[in-house]
């Protein structure tokens, strides 16, 4: 059965019928329909409710500028709030719900707000809800918040995936109407790389909505033929369902392609949408124009819409919004709508034109006058007309078209510095000011409102943009009607005449805003919320500006516009996030022993992007502490192994390598012997510690520098800065080798014995003493590096082999160590051992600490200039009571000494004013049998032995502690040198 308002013709496919549901009720439509056109075809005019007054709302437009017909599309996790019914392509099984209502759409309980509209004027909340003060948070605000928003999220994880991509072209054409298509033809035939994008699923722009012909074809047929020709060109990429959302610096455009939104669900593995970054040299903006409404009393009833939308529904979608239609216009275009509808067999109740010299028609009545009010609770039934003569007429109609003139779509011209210019002939803003680099504008977007003008303008723009010589391509004959318009914005004396239909901003609100001094156009917007709806003022702003101008006694361009901002239409957050979700949010970096560690049942922890083994639980261990304690004790007793590949490594070579290190480290490196390693502290230029690590001198002109895991990238960048910008003639070459080598720390009194089984050569204490380094071979010839350095405080080595051998080496080490009960240890045990040894790490090098704070003040060489040495001497960084790194232990061994707790004098007040310092790192020491910590304490070096109070009110800790040396284990360092 054909729905009641379905006409013949159009660009729908009557052979394909789609069933769909709206608010639980079933309807049918056809391929090529939008949800809005299908609903209208079925006689459904009421599609939503407004934000504030919950007034009944139907479609206002037939495009992406729609402020009213917003629905919750789909259900379950794919529910998509605020979806414009006017752009939602119909598919079989589509489900949609109306939104912002309590109860049914027809009987929305919140509609009571409309009764109180006298109270809910612009800015009402700034003046109220203040008495009594306590009521705001408890009563008023919860009520306001409950009413907030339009549609709702399902709050289920979005099940679809989104892609991102990158495209490059010579010319980007935004919009595939007559101007865009003729530009694309011209450019495409020249061989240039062209992308033409249009937000619609059917390219052709207004050509699909109009009845006039291009040459001997209908506009729609010409568009289809042109698109086919373009699609066949290898150098042209035709992108429908693609919105250019923003013009960014230097010819970069954001585009969203809706790959799957017209399908019930995306095909397997396919994204729902793709965010493209398009890099183009030239851009032609051919985005067309949007018709604007006229403000009159009760102009917001379902059935009242833009006249051009009526035309689109009739011509493109074969839908009559109603069988009796009236038009209210201030320009000739309104008459075109009436003629088109009349030709489709729709009864024109009358065309009401504000102009005395309006054209006359044989087919319908033209009245000189204004629509001053309407009737119809859930949809238009009558329009009241006041004729110029003063007589009144009542028009019976179910739809009314408003034709207030056209606004060129200047948005993208304003995304950078452009400010639109006023055009009196069109009574509209056209592109002006400084356009984005490489952008030209053509067609209706440039104020060229006729089809012939658009075709010509598009072709000329393409020629200009690409510097093409020769004649324009032959363009088909097309209508070239002038724009005849008399500016008319609102009906005098009206009050509840809507400007912003979604946010319920009326003419009265604008006047009130002016009355209260909110007179800048930005104040108007912010005070009334005019233009802040989901259409960002596309259909509402001009009316507000015109009224503001009149009240201020200024012209519209003097009042100016608010700023157009991206995105051009609302854009899903999902597509902007792309694939970076869940586990793929950031790449994972796996260490060479990852597979092996997984086999051992290791627990992993995120360290930046790295995953490191945190500890290795064994059967019978029930808490992480049990595992960690075991790993620590076993290492200190015999031997342990830990993957330390994540430390940054930089290969520093060149004849000036040593001098270079002298600059980047505060301590000296020039005299470091070949085959030796030295601890180094790097300062920022502001004198604060930046990073620490070791530098191993493998040859006179070759060092391997290590950085902390966290700072690998920033230290490398800093080194390149020093090399290229500060000492450009130093013979130094840098390259990161972090991932090139699998590196393991082998620590503990038996570490030498284990390594002796693997290393080809003598590593006795004499041959390879503490801080030695060398290129060696292992296991009978595999190239490797050995460093005798220790983070744990034990006799220890770090051994490195090319990464691909890392898996094999860890297995070899474990095999070789079996007789010594070798234990793999993770980052927790590593942390415990370094705290026991008093080594500073990330928690201590927190970006605010100096070498002096860290107890390494004497390392800052005075004998040379190095980065940061001068500013490290500022008075504020060298006060007598400055923080010093100390060790902290609980007086009662059972007490914790947690990181983040603050130190107070034992018998002093506990407050911020008496803060003495804080704990940076803490752990339980299985060797000492109690918790220990490192921290910073005012004048700490002189307070060893002092009893203090350690407080963490946040976590409920308040314990007595003793300040001790930070070196809990082997303070003399005998084990290291054993």
């Amino acid at each position, binding site marked *: 059965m054909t729905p009641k308002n379905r006409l013949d013709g159009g660009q729908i496919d009557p052979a394909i019928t789609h069933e769909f549901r709206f608010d639980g009720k079933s309807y049918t439509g056809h391929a090529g329909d939008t949800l809005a056109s299908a609903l209208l075809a079925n006689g459904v005019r009421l599609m939503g409710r407004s934000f504030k007054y919950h007034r009944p709302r139907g479609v206002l437009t037939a495009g992406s500028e729609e402020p009213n017909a917003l629905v919750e599309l789909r259900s379950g996790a794919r529910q998509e709030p605020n979806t414009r019914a006017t752009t939602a392509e119909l598919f079989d099984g589509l489900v949609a719900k109306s939104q912002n209502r309590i109860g049914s759409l027809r009987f929305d309980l919140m509609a009571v707000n409309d009764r109180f509209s006298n109270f809910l004027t612009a800015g009402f909340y700034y003046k109220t809800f203040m008495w009594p003060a306590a009521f705001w948070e408890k009563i008023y605000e919860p009520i306001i918040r409950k009413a907030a928003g339009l549609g709702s999220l399902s709050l289920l994880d979005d099940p679809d995936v989104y892609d*991102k991509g990158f495209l490059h072209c010579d010319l980007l054409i935004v919009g595939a109407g007559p101007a865009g298509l003729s530009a694309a033809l011209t450019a495409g035939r020249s061989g240039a790389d062209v992308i033409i994008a249009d937000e619609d699923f059917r390219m052709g722009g207004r050509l699909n909505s109009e009845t006039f012909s291009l040459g001997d074809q209908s506009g729609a047929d010409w568009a289809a033929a042109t698109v086919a020709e373009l699609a066949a060109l290898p150098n042209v990429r035709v992108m429908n369902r693609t919105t250019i959302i923003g013009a960014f610096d230097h010819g970069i455009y954001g585009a969203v392609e809706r790959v799957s939104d017209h399908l019930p669900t995306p095909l397997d593995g396919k994204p729902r949408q793709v965010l493209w970054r398009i890099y183009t040299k030239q851009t032609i903006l051919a985005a067309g124009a949007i018709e604007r409404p006229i403000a009159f009393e009760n102009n917001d009833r379902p059935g009242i819409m833009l006249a051009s939308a009526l035309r689109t529904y009739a011509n493109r979608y074969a839908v009559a919004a109603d069988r009796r239609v009236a038009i209210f216009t201030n320009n000739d275009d309104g008459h075109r709508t009436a003629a088109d509808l009349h030709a489709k067999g729709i009864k024109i109740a009358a065309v009401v034109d504000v102009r005395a010299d309006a054209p006359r028609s044989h087919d319908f009545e033209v009245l000189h006058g204004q629509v001053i009010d309407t009737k119809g609770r859930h949809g238009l039934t009558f329009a009241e007309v006041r004729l110029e003569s003063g007589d009144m007429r009542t028009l019976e109609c179910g739809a009314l078209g408003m034709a207030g003139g056209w606004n060129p779509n200047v948005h993208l011209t304003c995304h950078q510095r452009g400010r639109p210019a006023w055009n009196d002939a069109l009574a509209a803003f056209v592109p002006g000011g400084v356009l984005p680099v490489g952008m030209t504008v053509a067609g209706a977007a440039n104020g060229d409102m006729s089809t012939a003008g658009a075709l010509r303008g598009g072709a000329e723009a393409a020629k200009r943009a690409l510097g093409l010589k020769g004649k324009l391509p032959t363009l088909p004959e097309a209508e070239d009607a002038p724009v005849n318009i008399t500016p008319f914005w609102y009906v005098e004396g009206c009050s509840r005449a809507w400007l912003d239909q979604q946010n319920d901003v009326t003419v009265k609100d604008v006047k009130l805003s002016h009355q209260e001094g909110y007179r800048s156009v930005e104040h108007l917007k912010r005070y009334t919320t005019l233009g802040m709806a989901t259409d960002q003022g596309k259909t509402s702003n001009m009316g507000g500006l015109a009224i503001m101008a009149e009240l201020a006694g200024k012209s519209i361009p003097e009042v100016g516009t608010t700023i157009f901002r991206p995105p051009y239409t609302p854009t899903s957050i999902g597509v902007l996030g792309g694939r970076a979700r869940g586990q*793929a949010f950031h790449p994972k970096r796996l260490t060479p022993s990852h597979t092996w560690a997984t086999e051992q049942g290791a627990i992993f922890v995120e360290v930046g992007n790295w995953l490191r083994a945190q500890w290795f639980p064994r059967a019978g261990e029930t808490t992480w502490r049990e595992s960690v304690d075991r790993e620590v004790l076993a290492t200190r007793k015999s031997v342990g192994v830990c993957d330390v590949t994540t430390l940054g490594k930089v290969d520093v*070579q060149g004849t000036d390598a040593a001098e270079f290190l002298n600059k980047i480290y505060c301590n000296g490196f020039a005299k470091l012997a070949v085959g030796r390693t030295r601890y180094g502290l790097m300062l920022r230029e502001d004198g604060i510690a930046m990073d620490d690590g070791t530098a191993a001198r493998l040859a006179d002109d070759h060092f391997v520098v290590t950085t902390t895991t966290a700072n690998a990238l920033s230290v490398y960048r800093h080194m390149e800065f020093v090399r290229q910008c500060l000492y450009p*003639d130093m013979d130094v070459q840098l390259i990161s080798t972090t*991932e090139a080598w699998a590196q393991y720390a082998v620590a503990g009194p038996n570490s030498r014995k284990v390594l002796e089984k693997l290393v080809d050569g003598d590593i006795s204490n004499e041959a390879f003493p503490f801080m030695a380094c060398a290129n060696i071979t292992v296991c009978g010839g595999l190239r490797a590096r050995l460093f005798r350095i220790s983070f744990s405080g034990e006799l220890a080595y770090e051994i490195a082999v090319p990464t691909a051998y890392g*898996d094999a080496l860890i297995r070899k080490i474990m095999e070789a160590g079996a007789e010594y009960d070798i234990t793999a240890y993770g980052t927790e045990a590593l942390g415990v051992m370094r705290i026991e040894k008093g080594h500073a790490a990330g928690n201590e090098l927190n970006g605010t600490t100096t070498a002096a704070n860290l107890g390494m003040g004497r390392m800052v060489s005075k004998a040379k200039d190095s980065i940061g040495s001068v500013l490290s001497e500022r008075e504020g960084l060298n006060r007598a009571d400055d923080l010093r790194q100390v060790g902290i232990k609980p007086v009662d061994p059972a007490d914790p000494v947690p990181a983040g707790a603050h130190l107070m004098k034992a018998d002093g007040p506990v407050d911020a004013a008496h803060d003495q310092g804080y704990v940076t790192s803490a752990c339980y020491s299985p060797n000492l049998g109690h918790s220990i910590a490192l921290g910073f304490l005012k004048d700490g070096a002189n307070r060893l032995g002092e009893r203090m109070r350690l407080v963490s009110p946040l976590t409920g800790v308040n314990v007595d502690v003793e300040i001790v040396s930070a070196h809990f284990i082997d303070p003399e360092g005998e084990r290291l040198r054993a």
Partner: protein
Amino acid sequence: MHDLKTVTALGGTTPRVDTFARVTIAENDGVALASVAARMGHEKTCHAALEKLLGAVPAVGRAVLHDPEAGFWMGPDQWMLGAPRATHELLADQLTALLGKAASVTEQTGAWVVFDITGPGMADLSERLCNVPIRRMQAGDVQRTVIHHMGCFVIRRQAEDHIRILGPRASAGSLHHALVEAAQSIA
């Protein structure tokens, strides 16, 4: 001879191959890599040695797809050289012997995972991954860029439908995941 066995960057004993309708993603475990940076004042000697080895010095943004040794430009006076691992396991040592004090050579084999992407969907896949003008690139063009937060080299190889991607080895799994997802997207 040592008896240590290597594993591939993806952790397998053999390289992984994933085949899709329009594209094949193949892990390439057979490339030895080393960087070469000219020492200051020895640029000419370094260039001459490279020219002798590769037939030409790789120009900015270019690779010399020579056999068995190949190379591409990494930065000012810095190149990455590659060769079959089977024959050039000790590539860095070989280059050091060749270049002497004219250049700083650093072994890079272990730092990278290498993927060869071939097939008619190669360009479509590239567009979903990274910002290289893939359809304009010629054989031998090289661009360092970012793929899903991972710094990579993209090398347009000899065949029209072939790119080679060098990515950080530790992130081989994440990079592979990104490649496979993109391949599914464009299928």
